[in-house]
């Protein structure tokens, strides 16, 4: 039977299955956090109503299952999460899942554009720096990398706004579309792209620096390996040596880091989306904290965990494609 299933699919399914215990752990963790939070749903409701008599409170508790044992509550909580039922957002007066879904697209757009920028430029610059190791070019690139790395994204965002919006007036200060413009087709795409330039730059620069430094080290390491010497002894050199023998091998640790860091990038979107008023998951996280919307916050944790798991499986697939030593079966 397993012969009929392509190995790529079995591998993907296997990686997904391996993620189940992690998801369960996260569910237990977020349940514990809710339990640790001062006050429960009923307190919040009662607080909203401006007080109620104890008998009513007790009835509410029973209705929400809060009089059950902790384990029963955990079980119910997990069952709800599995059905993507994250509860009700009292701030937005909607189910949490709908609030999340309306904002997911913007965040994914920002993630993808930032990672593409960070990865492409990071890898290219890192390879160039390693190729000319210890030269003027290398020092220049490496120093720039350190500065990028040390630059807080919110500070960078403000600098960008100051220069490109306030002083030069080239780019919009925030939002995802020009309000009231109602553009369609390519004009709309261009409008969104213009709004994304600064957020992408602000979010990607620190990771660009990460990938660059790692790629530089990795290329230097690979260049010392035996098989590169073999290739040189065969008469390979220049670009051929770099692309076929060095770069592809050197990419492996960078791809690993890409997977490991995706959740950090997602976390970074909180600050950037808030500054640029991008209606995405990150900005939602900020407003939820400010407005004490715990249900939404927990929904964000659950949803972002699922996204991170999916992205990790994807990077594993890329890794397996790059490295034939990983057996898919």
């Amino acid at each position, binding site marked *: 039977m397993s012969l009929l299933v392509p190995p790529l699919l079995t591998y993907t399914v296997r990686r997904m299955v391996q993620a189940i215990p992690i998801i369960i752990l996260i569910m237990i963790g977020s349940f514990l*956090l809710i339990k640790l939070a*001062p006050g429960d749903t009923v307190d919040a409701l009662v607080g909203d109503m401006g007080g109620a008599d104890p008998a009513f409170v007790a009835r509410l508790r029973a209705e929400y299952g809060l009089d059950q044992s902790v384990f029963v509550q955990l079980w119910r909580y997990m069952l709800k999460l599995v059905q993507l039922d994250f509860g009700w957002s009292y701030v937005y007066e909607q189910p949490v899942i709908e609030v999340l879904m309306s904002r997911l697209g913007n965040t994914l757009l920002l993630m993808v554009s930032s990672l593409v920028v960070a990865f492409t430029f990071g890898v290219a610059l890192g390879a160039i720096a390693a190729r000319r190791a210890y030269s003027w070019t290398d020092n220049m690139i490496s120093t720039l990398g*350190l500065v990028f790395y040390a630059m807080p994204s919110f500070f960078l965002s403000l600098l960008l706004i100051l220069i490109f919006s306030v002083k030069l007036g080239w780019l919009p200060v925030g939002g995802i579309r020009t309000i009231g413009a109602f553009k369609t087709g390519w004009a709309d795409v261009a409008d969104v792209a213009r709004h994304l330039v600064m957020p992408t730059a602000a979010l990607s620069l620190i990771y660009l620096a990460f990938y660059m430094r790692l790629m530089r080290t990795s290329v230097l390491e690979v260049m010392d390996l035996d098989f590169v010497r073999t290739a040189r002894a065969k008469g390979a050199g220049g670009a051929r040596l770099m692309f076929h023998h060095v770069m592809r091998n050197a990419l492996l640790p960078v791809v690993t880091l890409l997977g490991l860091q995706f*959740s950090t990038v997602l976390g970074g979107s909180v600050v950037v989306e808030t500054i640029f008023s991008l209606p995405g998951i990150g900005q939602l996280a900020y407003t939820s904290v400010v407005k004490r919307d715990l249900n939404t916050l927990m929904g964000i944790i659950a949803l972002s965990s699922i996204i991170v798991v999916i992205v990790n499986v994807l990077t594993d697939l890329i890794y397996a494609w790059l490295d034939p030593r990983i057996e898919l079966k």
Partner: protein
Amino acid sequence: MTHPDTSVASRPLPPASPAPIALPDIGLAQTRSLVLWRRFRRNRAALLGLILFVAVVLMAALADVVTPGDPLRIAGSPLTDPLTVASNPWGTDQLGRDIMSGIFHGARISLAIGVVATVISIAIGVVIGAVAGYFGGRIDGALMRVTEAFQTIPSFVLLLTLVAIFGSSIEIIVIAIGIVSWTAPARMVRAEFMSLRRREFVDAARNLGVSDMSIIFREILPNALPPVVVFASVVMANSILMESALAFLGLGDPNYASWGNMIGQGRAVLRTAWFCSVIPGIAILLTVLSFSLMGEGLNDALNPRQKR
């Protein structure tokens, strides 16, 4: 049970034969740390990092001397430009608070939070990574699942959640930053332990009857520590960045002057008084840069082979 008949100690030792092997002539005075310091000193970027770091430490130490008084009090007319008034050399913000005072006192908060959060996260990371890497098998499997779970939740979102639930006092913030950033050190320590435990000196110690705990903490850990120390500089930089981001969003401890908070407040007057956010921004930038530079320098000093 002993065997006195074959015990080496019970028999006179054979006369000491003349030592035929010459030892390399290395002065004992040339200790490891001295060698490291020499290599570190040769690295100009690392020295720059050290100088920046010392400057930040001095700012923190001398905050009460140079800029006495509460940094949050009103100390001049609002939005004074830098270099115009002697009592507010770096200017004031929209509430008339002195920026220089804020920077100096903010250095304390940044360093304190950075150090404590780093100690917390490295401590958790070392224990979990060491146990997982040394014992392997199921213990490793279980601990790594927990690590991955923590790594899967975006750390800044988790930080926000912890602060939202437990409040934003400075103690909570420090502990929360420690809790969200131990996974990377744990993974690194685990990898170090997995490679070191395969080294034969670990087998040799086991063969002498040394206990597991002793092997973990007294045999392997000292060998695994140098990369951990280097990595601590990264964790430190990250902790400072996280705290300032939190303060920037207005979720920090309101009772202390914090660079992030200064930038956040300065945002409102960005168009007219850019210096309110740029000065603290540069302070963060240079502080984080100092840790990166020192970390790189230390790394190069520890692995001189990579350097040509």
